[in-house]
């Protein structure tokens, strides 16, 4: 364990804990902005902050927008546009849609929904369609809602309410009509808006042996392979669930019943994301292989996983890495939030590391 930590990681101590960080989709490579969800436990206040990354490197606060409750998830619409749309879900069960100027980094307006009918408990995760006009949110109360930008306000409708019998902790769009959710017991559900009344397919991992909760924390779906979900969950488990072979998930990290893949971590995997930077060695070997996946974990690991290969450890920190994001424009740069009130930026290529 290195005391000073990885020398390649640029560390930016923050005055308060950071719950989530995201790169802001940029128009030019000259101006790079990142958004952070922060929480001050002393004053019980929360905010979405926009920081500009300047050479030096340093992280300068551009703007801050208060959110009434602690933020559980922060997501951006994927396509670069003006203004950008970002959704912040809160533990109090509200959803806030912010419009952010991608040049100035200012937060201009907010639409929110905080109806008890919308959510009775924490909204655990939210995900937006490409342009950010439509969002899907899932909650601890087992409600799945669709939220759309209406006339100067947010309109929402219920997709499903499990009445507390099941709860969801992660969500990700697969196509304009389909999305995947995750929950307890390494469970993944596939939903189709055209077939209402419940999930169209579901899976429960049977790895939950012993004292583990088996909670799914994050799901990612690659735009070119919409039938495969990669899932990050408890006990260092990362697996791919293919809709075409629903009973045969592919374990990328973790301890399974039959097969054991060398786990990159042994604790909660907080976030998984397809790593667009690494050119998979498997491109030639056919479409059946899972593309490289990056994950971060409670025990301080940031690693890239490839099917059938040893995990490549990028960081091994002394504290948890609570979340990360890969810059869509410069996929070599990773921003992450460390448990000890810090934002970290890890440049992976020579060109960008000198630019910092």
């Amino acid at each position: 364990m290195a005391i000073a930590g990885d020398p390649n990681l640029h560390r930016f101590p923050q005055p308060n804990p950071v719950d989530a960080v995201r790169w802001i989709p940029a128009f030019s490579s000259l101006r790079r902005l990142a958004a952070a969800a922060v929480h001050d436990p002393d004053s019980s206040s929360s905010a979405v902050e926009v920081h500009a990354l300047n050479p030096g490197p340093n992280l300068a606060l551009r703007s801050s927008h208060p959110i009434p409750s602690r933020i559980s998830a922060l997501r951006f619409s994927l396509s670069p546009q003006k203004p950008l749309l970002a959704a912040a879900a809160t533990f109090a069960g509200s959803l806030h849609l912010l419009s952010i100027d991608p040049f100035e980094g200012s937060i201009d307006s907010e639409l929110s929904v905080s109806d008890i009918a919308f959510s009775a408990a924490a909204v655990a995760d939210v995900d937006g369609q490409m342009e950010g006009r439509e969002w899907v949110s899932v909650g601890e109360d087992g409600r799945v809602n669709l939220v759309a930008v209406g006339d100067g306000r947010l309109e929402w409708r219920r997709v499903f309410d499990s009445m507390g019998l099941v709860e969801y902790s992660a969500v990700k769009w697969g196509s304009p009509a389909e999305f995947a959710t995750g929950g307890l017991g390494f469970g993944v559900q596939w939903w189709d808006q055209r077939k209402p009344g419940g999930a169209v397919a579901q899976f429960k991992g049977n790895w939950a042996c012993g004292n583990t909760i088996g909670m799914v924390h994050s799901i990612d779906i690659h735009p070119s392979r919409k039938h495969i979900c990669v899932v990050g969950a408890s006990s260092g488990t990362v697996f791919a669930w293919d809709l075409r072979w629903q009973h045969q998930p592919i374990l990328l990290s973790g301890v399974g019943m039959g097969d054991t893949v060398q786990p990159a971590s042994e604790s909660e995997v907080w976030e998984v994301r397809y790593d667009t930077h690494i050119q998979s060695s498997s491109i030639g070997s056919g479409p059946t292989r899972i593309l490289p996946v990056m994950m971060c974990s409670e025990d301080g690991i940031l690693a890239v996983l490839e099917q059938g290969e040893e995990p490549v450890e990028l960081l091994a920190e002394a504290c948890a890495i609570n979340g990360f994001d890969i810059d869509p424009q410069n996929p070599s740069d990773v921003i992450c939030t460390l448990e000890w009130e810090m934002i970290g930026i890890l440049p992976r290529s020579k060109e960008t590391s000198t630019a910092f």
Partner: protein
Amino acid sequence: MPGRASDPGNSLVHFAPEVRDPVVYPIRHGINPPLFRVFVSWSDGNLLNVACLQAPSPVSNATARAAEPEADIGGKVVEVRLGEGDGEINEEQRRRIAYGSVPAFAMLQSRRNSLSMMSRMASSSSFRNEWWQHVLEYSNQIKDLLGPPRLPSSSVIEDSKVVLQQIEEPSSLKAAWELMEIFYVDKQSSAWLPERLVDWLAGYDCILARTETAIYSKLVNVQKKIVKIQVIEDDSEYWEGISSALAVGWLDVVVKLLRLHGSYQLDQLGNRETENGLVEAVAVLVSTMPRMRADLPTGKLGQCCKTKPDFVKAWEKWRGHITKLECSAFWVQCGHRQTREGLRNLLQIMLGNIKNLTTSTCHWMELYISHFLFIRPFSTGLEGMHSLAQKCMQLKPSSNSSGLIGVFMGILGGNTEVVLAECSKAFGPWMVAHAMELLTATDDQADILLHEERYNLGGISMEELHRLVYAQVLSSHPLTWQIAPTYLASCSKQGLGLLEVLLYRQSVHNLRVTLKNLEICRLYELENISACIMKIAGVYYWKHGRRGSGIHWLQQAQDEVRLNRIAQQLFECIGKSISDDSFKQWEGLIELLGSEVGTAGGLEFLHKYRDFKRSLQLVHDKKAADAARQTVESLVQLMRSPSTPRRFWLPLLHDSVHLLNWRGQALLNVSETNLLLSKLQELSMAKLHPDFSNFDLPAQALATVRLALAANLRQAILEES
């Protein structure tokens, strides 16, 4: 510890007995006076919860209260934050230090464990020899954390007019830490102790300057002047500044200042040749001063001597040069009075004239350091250093004794307990818990003192006590509680017990906190605790309507008892809501429960029930005989299974009436039918029982089932015979 406050002499952990000005915290409760009662209780950290209650009004009727709810609150709880830190280090920095010191501390502990394992085989002296180097590494890591390192000179183009690098002021916490490192850890440099103290003062003189006049503040003024004034050598402050800087050994500053002397200017060089020669001669003497130290960092002046004989030789030679210059005839030819007097003063300082040293220094600490430079260049043991310090203190009485000075005097006094007390008083529990490692690194006496188990501390050592105190401080804050386990785990006696208490105490409101809790249990292999935490969380979720989560968490904790209790409640609501089309609602939960037997308490029944319902639906749609036979088989299994609640017997049978009346053949054989009949009989008996609950079945359900069973029995008997 109510008794302790009155007797500070007896306290385990230091607290300041002197009463400062009381601080008044106004409380805005917004309750109409008079207040009936005030409750005060501690919350997290230094938060105080104050509950103010209004006197109950004699005529309290509900309608009046409803009419004006704002005016009649009745009571309110207000949070009051006490203290705002000592100003030098704010809460945010304090947390950063706390986080950063965890890996260093943990690494040192694990090294200690592995080293002591190895040295059990070898001798203990080899342990000591290696150990202090690990502690030194630890100390350096902590030092980096306490502030940026002092860089010699960072600017590429040196400005001749900048004599003093004004850097970000270091904290006295760092100064104290470095002091302890010098005295307790760094064995290698003990021969060069005086020079290390010179370096130390050079770095931290600005801290002394905060409360009293010190050389640093003097030089800051000189720095301001040299930019403005043309003929600097006429100014007395210029010469005072030079002599002060020389007295504490800041040779680079002295030489830089001397070179600003007017005689160096080209237009004056001609008629001030002698004067310039004298200035330069002194500057050369200053820059060649012999110094007994390991190395000289770039930018620092002097002649570096590593061993005592080398140094003595160089010292004598250098002193010879000074005396020669002192007696030189050139002084008479030097026409500039200030220069002449100033330079001769410098020579006197270098010759170690106590009078000149005393006038050139401000704080007693500076006088003390100048002793080491010009009067007694060798270390003389703690006792000698202590008495010298006291002498200097008498010469220059200090009005303000800061915590730093207290620590310094404690170290010189050679009393570990005093050092600890001063550390605790000035810098708090973080310092004490971490500095403990420095104190015991090379000192066997301190090692014994701090590690021996004490009866009056309940059988724990001083070291453990202070770690526990620090862990308590960490535990009280929502952001730092998660690093407390590292410290608790290093406490062999009480640590584990307190760790368990800490883990139990975390609330289950926030899932992340609960998962963190379980992670800590996993790291320290506390399976029992993690099962308990899961149970607590499970019950919490269940009570808050998150039934799926509640069941899942209890299932993972293998809590059969609670699951069975929950199952009864769950079946009750199933019975009411479950019909064939709303089964979708339950699908997710049933999937979550899994199909393995014995993991879900009584709930595994749900899985079988769902399967039965499904195949029943299938029979209904297809009317196929083999599907019907299979359904009947699962019916019999369900009826046989002890996990099937009795309340489901009748609905199950009622649902399968048309199977019992299957046209053409009997799906149940005689013994199976008898089994179902006996169950039915049992049910009719139980009907008389008071807590018998019936679902919304038609009143004649029992009779219908009985009839169908009888019909089936007749058919079966016929077929079997």
